[in-house]
């Protein structure tokens, strides 16, 4: 799930990044928004929108985008 500040919400982190990039020589950058990435493995992807609405994002101030990929669950380390 990609969670971003809604359009129209002041995003000082995004603005700070947008100002810092030209100073490093990267021109032509606009529209920087800084958000959050939540990755998880889920058996029933139909639950994802409800998870976003209820916990993972705050719909008043954030938009979310769900990306799924159908790889079998990876082995190994989880936090």
């Amino acid at each position, binding site marked *: 799930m990609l969670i971003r500040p809604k359009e129209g919400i002041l995003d000082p982190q995004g603005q700070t990044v947008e100002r810092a990039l030209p100073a490093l020589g990267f021109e032509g950058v606009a529209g920087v928004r800084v958000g959050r990435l939540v990755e998880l493995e889920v058996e029933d992807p139909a639950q994802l929108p409800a998870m976003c609405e209820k916990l993972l994002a705050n719909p008043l101030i954030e938009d979310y985008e769900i990306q799924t990929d159908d790889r079998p669950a990876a*082995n*190994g*380390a989880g*936090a």
Partner: protein
Amino acid sequence: MSRHRELGLTDAEYELICEKLDREPNAVELAMFSLLWSEHCAYKHSRKLLRRLPTEGASVVMGPGENAGAVDVGGGRAVAFKVESHNHPSAVEPFQGAATGVGGILRDVFAIGARPIAVLDSLRFGEPASERSRYLLDRAVAGIGHYGNSIGVPTVGGEVYFEGPYEQNCLINAMCVGLAPRERLIRSAAAGPGNVLVLLGASTGRDGIGGASVLASAELDEADESKRPSVQIGDPFEESKLVECCLDLLEDDLLVSLQDLGAAGLTSSAGEMASKGGVGIDIDVARVPLREADMEPFEVMVSESQERMLCVVEPGRLDAVRGRCARWEVRATAIGEVTGSGRLRVLDGAEVVGDVPVAALVDECPLYDLVPAAPTAPLYPTPIRTLTGDDPREALLALLASPNLSSRRPLFQQYDSIVQSRTVRRPEQADAAVLALEGGGAIAMSIDGSGRRVACDPYVGTMAAVFECASNLACVGAEPLGLTNCLNFGNPEKPHIAWQLERAVDGLAEACRALDVPVVGGNVSLYNEGTEGPIYPTPVVGMVGSLPHPERAGRLGFAREGDAIAIAGGFHPSLPGGELAKLRGEPLPDRLPGFDAAKVRAAQEAIRDAVRAGELSSAHDIAEGGFLVAVAESCLAGGVGAALDLGPSDEPWTQLYGEGAGGFVVSGPREALDRFAERVPLDVFGTVGGDALGVAIGDWSFGATLSELREANSALAPLFP
């Protein structure tokens, strides 16, 4: 096999290990020895020297050797405190390095059963003209704030200095103060063969393994670099649960002993617990909760994953301990047991993968004598000149605007200084932080170090740093009870650094004796040098004192129009080695004038008593920048000006800007100061009032408005946009 060399052990040390084991160490054992026999853990080059420090005093409840020291503050209460460095990790990643430095020192304090109630920090960086130093400063302050604020412990004081020699080696020293009923204090000695070893807190990953990774049995390719992070990441939320859990367990007497996990992880904690208790410990790495799959036994034993504690529990109490930990949502896992063997054994399930005598690992590391020799040539470059001309007014404004003297408000506003509701004096209100204690009374604390002046004269410079700390306590009305210190130096194998270290320790010892203040604990950080040379020798001192009436705690700001202003105490300033000399680009002198320790102590006591009796409106130690800078600071803190007339003077520069121990700027009603003059050397020089600072001395007459002073003093603000 030269694996031992890659791990930092000398050939002689390796042979000694083989002798003690009666065979060669395997990979697990080699990893353990390489860490416990490192300078950082074993204090190979400093332990003998530290024996010169006085550690006894009537108030001492816990002296050096435990996780933190503690002093009695009356009413059945003890105050625990310690300072530690986190210099090298902070140079790599300053946010997490500073944050985990705070986390680590907090654990040392609650490991002895005291609730952390305050944090102070001492920071040193290169000049702010350097982008890297600005970056380190910004991130370190953010990291300290992040950890302290999140865990709900107020950061109530600190210091920050900027000098060229710290450009490649920044210093991050963190001090924690804690409070406990005396009977809740606990020691770390493991006891009782058959008792269970329980690991509390976060799961164990590969944090901090870094150098020891040469021992990995699997072939490492480039992609695996990321699996062995050298940066420890702190989790203050986990630690906040751990604090409450541990204090709860101690409150109900459920633990035999408690130890925190820091440098060298399970190896050093279990090793030290066993050594203190004269017992052995078996640890089964297969039972340790892991964050990463496929960790090898040596990795589990040396991991520096944060927010973990080790405790010893009687088998009959294990269920109660588990239940309590579940309530606080803290992981608790039995990972081993105390034995009578005197050996630290590492098991992986049923298989013994490491087996060493505790004494060899913890107590029998060879200690080295320093080979000191005074330097024959200057060790440090002359500071770069930033002030030209001969204008005393410009000098005042330049000093107030200099990075070392500018207001630290942009820093300390990033710290929560009020949580826990004890803070009676916050930064910039007084020379020391003051916390009121439940049950009555209050404690004061300050952290003070010195680099450049110790470089000029390690013995006098260190004595002066200790006396400055005690003077700061005196200005709020506190009597010092104990001291903790962090010694930050270069490579002690170099004779001139050894000379600095030895002279500094002797100065520290002499100052403690002169003040009757025992050392209750501390830390040493060596090898702080880079291609451009060593850091200034930098002893950092943290002191805690007590005062009976928090409502009478002293303030540094002028308070009342019409109050008289005086210098109290015998003040014998000199310019060389001071802040003005630095701005003028003068080379460091090769010694500093000594001072009369007994007289300075007497002045401190007189100031302390006068503050307690409410006789003074303000008291402020004269330190860096000298007398006029101290007056300007008192004007700014009080929001009011002053008119000074110092009369004729042969050396106005020295009188206004010279530095030295033992002088205080005090203010109060004229009659009160006249009475005070009967107990302490005192010269009245001016009056509080107006909105400007005016000075008449010799032929000079100059001044600056409060707003000019304030603007100059706000020079650090642009560093924190």
